[in-house]
């Protein structure tokens, strides 16, 4: 600890920090631009100037940059010094010389860091009377709008995009005051974290283009704490609504989870909520199928009654994208044994295995924050960039401990970003990737190994063997592979915090077991190491915890005639299983009830469709890959009969004449019932304050105190202001009245603090800058490894299996934009989704004589034949073909799987099929 003096008052602060961070942590309002809590100091803007005094007697002092100065013991500074203040106001005036002053038409207005800092420094009158320098703007793709004249050249955008996120197509050009931030030419910004520029840029240069299409001021957005539903990481978000449409997603800081950033899938996937495929009211379909017709809630309930009249004839299919509460309600309705988990047989098996490994231990599943501290990583079979983007962003930041030590020996602290990067020469922590297909992190990896899933698993087991016995110890392992195994084992062993990452995405049980074997070996031999498994969807982990049988078994039950009514919860079965299997399942049910928010091929088959809320219109709990249960809250009240799925299912339970759900008045009740029934979920009851929580007797308002036009919003129908809807489920209210101070961390609807209107207000909500939120980061971990249990069972090491001639091993490929079901319905994301394709390595394609863009017939056993265009993918092993999972237009095939390919004969003249 160090004692520092600010305006002659002593403060005890943590060692080795810079003065800006320290001052902000202490709650001082010191303006800044180029410094960013995640990207640290570069000393460019000169806005954070303070006075430094040599000692008590020094009265003159000198101006220094707080962000570039170590807060060392005994240092004396002044923030209030008149000269320092004058300097800071002067800097703001400089920044404003060519600024267009177009706040009224600027999307950033009202949440602009430049506005806030200008007010903070007291600069009011612009003395510059000359022509302003102007720039032209660029087209940057569907996500970001570009308005370069507003730039204050803080360099945050390029530092985020290139240095932090590894992007290559944005840069600073020109020099002097002509410096320009953009692409070398107009075009789509390719990096999948580009949307963060809207939050990173302190002015209105980069703004959310989708928000712009239905723009409203921040102070008019109704917001609530939420959780991203587009992958299993559960990044915390702040969705904003007005007039019944969801307008945008902002980051919600959670020190343990996403920190300051979101990926573009998470930020821009939200448009499905407003989409024209939404199910907005109950629908009925006649027995013969055909068009469904809208019906009243009463009609829906009576049809429900008919369908449910015979107890014991019912089965329920849950969903990895529905909340814990909705899945639990369904499980309660149908009973534990008649609850099916709604994912493919393979996924169910892999998830259960992964979960069991994590519960058994000894390795623990780390939070993203803990992953940030890893110093050697081995990824087995996951394309992290495309299945869990923010984890990939986290992995890009890893620095080996010895590099930090080296920098410190040169008197460079890691927050001195430019010097630190120079000292460590961008050298990352060792990162090894073994997978069947190339992954998004390959370019950053120390070494990559591409082979069939079984060979990848064999490498993993070899690594485990080296760790345990010093030798790979496996028959027939090629020399280069055993060498690699030795190298990886060595890197993991040398690291202070080694991490193994695998997951469901590779589709291979042996890869998961291989990862587990390594982490066990690391734990038992070195006493360290963490293990992270990636799950595919926002509540896959929750569903795995809940259990449930597979879809194949559901088919069996129906075929045997043990059931005739199917209740499907928020699930399109056609992306879970091959079409013929799903057809069989649906055909063997007499009644199908679907509760969902969006039309899909499954809902088209239901006789009764009930409108469910999306994450934005309902509240609930999701469990992320780490095993962290997190609550999302209703952002706005939807029109009509849209409700949380569990409420529809609660009706079904009551209609069936049963009492289990009678006590479920609010979300807390069903969560409590779930915890009682399944102790794994006990912690869910503690993830947030209960619904009756009040501060000074008041609820927490979802609307900012500056929300405007409330009385005008409904004036076209009624001159009286309507009563705000009540929210029984949470301590949040749909009004602008209520408790004005800071809410408890799980209930923070937006970051705002007096004088801090931009996202940077988050500074005021943290215990210390970039640390946990005051009151602790929200969420509760549901999985901790059992203490002291050591698994003895040796894992079965897969044989290296060859392929017969004419046989191809088809493996899954992932796309940030394309793989996830809901985000592809968003029009902005849809622009980034690739066309369906089949990937072959160029060598294989050549030997088949098939050119890029030409079509091939894909034949998988028991599944419909698909015709699909071929794309060359360098790095795929020979004999392995890749198929993008869930990409619109690509039929569902259980992967990996052996398939055959037929190349249609070419017509002589064009060479095209």
């Amino acid at each position, binding site marked *: 600890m160090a004692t520092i003096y600010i305006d002659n008052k002593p403060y005890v602060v943590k060692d080795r920090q810079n003065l800006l961070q320290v001052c902000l942590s202490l709650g001082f309002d010191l303006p800044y631009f180029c410094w960013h809590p995640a990207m640290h100091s570069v000393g460019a803007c*000169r806005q954070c100037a303070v006075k430094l005094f040599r000692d008590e007697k020094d009265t003159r002092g000198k101006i220094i940059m707080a962000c570039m100065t170590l807060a060392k013991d005994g240092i004396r500074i002044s923030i209030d010094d008149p000269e320092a203040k004058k300097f800071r106001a002067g*800097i703001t005036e400089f920044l404003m010389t060519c600024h267009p002053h177009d706040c009224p038409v600027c999307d950033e207005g009202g949440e602009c860091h430049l506005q806030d800092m200008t007010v903070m420094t007291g600069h009011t009158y612009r003395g510059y009377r000359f022509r302003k320098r102007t720039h032209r703007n660029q087209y940057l793709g569907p996500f970001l709008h570009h308005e370069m004249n507003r730039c204050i*050249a803080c360099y945050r955008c390029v530092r985020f995009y290139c240095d932090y996120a590894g992007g290559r197509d944005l*840069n600073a050009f020109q*020099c002097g005051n002509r410096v320009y931030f953009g692409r070398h030419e107009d075009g789509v910004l390719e990096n999948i974290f580009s949307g963060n520029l809207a939050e990173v840029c302190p002015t209105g240069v980069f703004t959310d283009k989708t928000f712009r299409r239905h723009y409203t001021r921040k102070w008019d957005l109704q917001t609530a704490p939420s959780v991203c539903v587009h992958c299993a990481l559960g990044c915390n978000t702040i969705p904003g609504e007005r007039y019944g449409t969801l307008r945008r997603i902002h980051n919600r800081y959670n020190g343990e989870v996403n920190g300051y950033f979101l990926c573009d899938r998470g930020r821009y996937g939200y448009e499905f909520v407003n989409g024209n495929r939404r199910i907005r009211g109950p629908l009925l379909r006649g027995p013969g199928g055909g068009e469904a017709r809208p019906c009243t809630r009463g009609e829906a309930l009576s049809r429900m009654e008919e369908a449910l009249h015979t107890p014991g004839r019912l089965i329920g299919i849950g969903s990895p994208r529905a909340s814990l509460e909705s899945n639990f309600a369904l499980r309660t309705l149908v009973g534990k044994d008649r609850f099916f988990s709604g994912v493919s047989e393979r996924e169910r098996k892999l998830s259960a295995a992964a979960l069991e490994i994590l519960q058994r231990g000894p390795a623990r599943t780390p939070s993203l924050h803990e992953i940030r501290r890893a110093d050697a990583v081995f990824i087995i079979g996951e394309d992290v960039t495309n299945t869990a983007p923010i984890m990939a962003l986290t992995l890009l930041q890893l620095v080996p401990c010895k590099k930090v030590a080296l920098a410190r020996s040169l008197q460079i602290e890691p927050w001195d970003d430019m*010097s630190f990067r120079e000292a460590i020469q961008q050298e990352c922590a060792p990162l090894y990737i073994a997978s069947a297909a190339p992954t998004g992190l390959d370019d950053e990896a120390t070494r990559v190994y591409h082979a069939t899933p079984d060979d990848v698993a064999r490498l993993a087991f070899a690594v485990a063997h080296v760790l345990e016995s010093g030798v790979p110890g496996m028959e027939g392992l090629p020399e280069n592979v055993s060498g690699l195994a030795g190298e990886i084992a060595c890197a993991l062993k040398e690291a202070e915090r080694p991490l193994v990452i695998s997951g469901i995405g590779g589709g291979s049980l042996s890869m998961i077991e291989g990862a587990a074997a390594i982490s066990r070996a690391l734990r038992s031999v070195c006493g360290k190491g963490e293990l992270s498994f990636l799950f595919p969807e926002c509540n896959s982990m929750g569903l795995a915890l809940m259990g449930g049988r597979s879809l194949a078994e559901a088919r069996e039950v129906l075929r045997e005639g043990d059931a005739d009514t199917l209740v499907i919860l928020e699930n399109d079965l056609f992306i879970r299983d091959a079409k013929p299997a799903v057809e069989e399942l649906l055909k063997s049910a007499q009644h199908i009830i679907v509760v969902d928010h969006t039309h899909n091929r499954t809902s088209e088959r239901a006789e009764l469709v009930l409108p469910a809320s999306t994450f934005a219109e309902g509240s609930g709990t999701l469990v992320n890959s780490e095993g962290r249960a997190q609550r999302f809250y209703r952002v706005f009240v939807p029109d009509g009969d849209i409700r949380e799925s569990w409420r529809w299912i609660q009706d079904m339970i009551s209609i069936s004449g049963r009492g289990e759900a009678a006590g479920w008045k609010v979300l807390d009740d069903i969560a409590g019932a779930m915890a009682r029934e399944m102790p794994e979920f006990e912690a869910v009851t503690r993830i947030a304050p209960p619904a009756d929580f009040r501060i000074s007797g008041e609820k927490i308002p979802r609307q900012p105190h500056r929300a405007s036009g409330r009385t005008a919003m409904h004036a076209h129908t009624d001159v009286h202001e309507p009563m705000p809807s009540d929210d029984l489920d949470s301590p949040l209210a749909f009004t602008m009245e209520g408790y004005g101070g800071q809410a408890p961390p799980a209930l923070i609807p937006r970051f705002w603090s007096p004088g801090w209107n931009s996202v940077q207000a988050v500074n005021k909500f943290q215990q210390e800058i970039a640390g946990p939120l005051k009151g602790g980061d929200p969420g509760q971990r549901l999985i901790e490894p059992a203490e002291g249990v050591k698994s003895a069972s040796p894992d079965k090491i897969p044989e290296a299996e060859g392929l017969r001639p004419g046989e191809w091993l088809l493996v899954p490929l992932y796309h940030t934009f394309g793989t996830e079901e809901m985000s592809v319905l968003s029009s902005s994301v849809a622009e980034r989704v690739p066309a369906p394709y089949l990937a072959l390595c160029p060598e294989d394609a050549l030997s088949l004589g098939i050119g890029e863009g030409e079509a091939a017939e894909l034949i998988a056993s028991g599944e419909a034949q698909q015709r699909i265009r071929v794309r060359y993918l360098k790095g795929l092993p020979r004999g392995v073909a890749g198929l993008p999972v869930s990409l619109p237009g690509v039929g569902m095939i259980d992967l990996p799987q052996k398939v055959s390919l037929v190349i249609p004969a070419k017509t002589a003249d064009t060479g095209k099929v």
Partner: protein
Amino acid sequence: METPITKNIRAGNGPPDLKSYEWAGGYRAVRKALTGMTPQAVQDAVTASNLKGRGGAGFPTGKKWAFVPMGAEARRPKYLVVNADEMEPGTFKDRLLLEGDPHQLIEGAIVSAYALEAEIAYIFVRWEYREAARRVARAIVEARGAGYLGSNILGSGYNLEIYLHVSAGRYICGEENGLLDALEGKRPIPRSKPPFPQTCGLWGRPTVVNNVETICNIPHIVNNGADWFKSLSRSEDGGTKLYGASGRVKRPGLWELPMGTSLREIIEEHAGGMREGFSFRAAQPGGASTEFLPKEQIDVKMDFDSVQKAGSRLGTGTIIVLDDRTCPVGAVHNLEMFFARESCGWCTPCREGLPWVREILWSIEEGRGEAGDLERLETQCWQLAPGHTFCALAPGAVEPLQSALKIFREDFDRHIREKRCPWK
């Protein structure tokens, strides 16, 4: 009077080739240092010589070198970088050395690199210095052919490669950290100090950046010793200095003279005095980024300390003379146009302040000046003072302005009062 660093240079002749250079005593210092001296002994000689860096800041070269980690512990490779970016307006001294005697520079670089135990040296040449680059490139080839470069040089066990890098061309590439970025293939932006390049420089390794003229002095110090070197000077700073003069003098040019020669001597004797019809009004003693010295200071001795005491900087030692028939406001505007254009754009005061300064000066010069403009300019000078900006470009840029506002105050006032430039 001895002129060690220009003795091989003959106006109108090409540079000496390897043979003539050796014949004139060249590469003796390489032989002496590499086969008879330890690196530390070379460093000691340089420290004892009181050689101060000729790149502008006048930092003692021996002291700079002493910060480089030495021995087996040091991180490698270590680098020596010769700064031949010379883009300061009014400065053209390094060009003479590069074009006139490239082998001297190579020899200096070899001896300096040896003193630092550096394995690699770069010569970073300004883009426009095409001829210089050609000549240096040829000299490198010749030196390698003669075994002065490469591995095990002269059987000493010492290895060195020298690479020529022709810059893409910007003033900021002359700032040592901007230069290192440019060498690394990055956007040239100065780096924050500390760390200094000596510990964390090119590609994060120990690096010394020295000016061409600094390096050219090294062989002579090694050959003749520190005392001889100090005896060349008329001041505390050792050696001779390449002084230059431009402006309305009779014979603009460059002269190698004892360090500490007076401004008057340089202008009146070597440059032949002012041209007919012009009289001396003030001068920038060391390039565009130094403060004007008024006529009263013409007897100042041109060494680092004396010029500093007189209120300016020796800088590069190339004098820009302002005569009585040139508008000082226009002259300063011209300078600021350059600096505003060359600001790298990294830090706010320089990036936004200099164009503003330029605009105010231009409006004053055009008769559009307003009351308060001069106070505004003074504020800008303060805002761009040392420590307030990220590197020394901005403070250097406002040095001439700051002094002009004092020395030529009445001229500025007249412009504003009369709403025109009195010289036009």
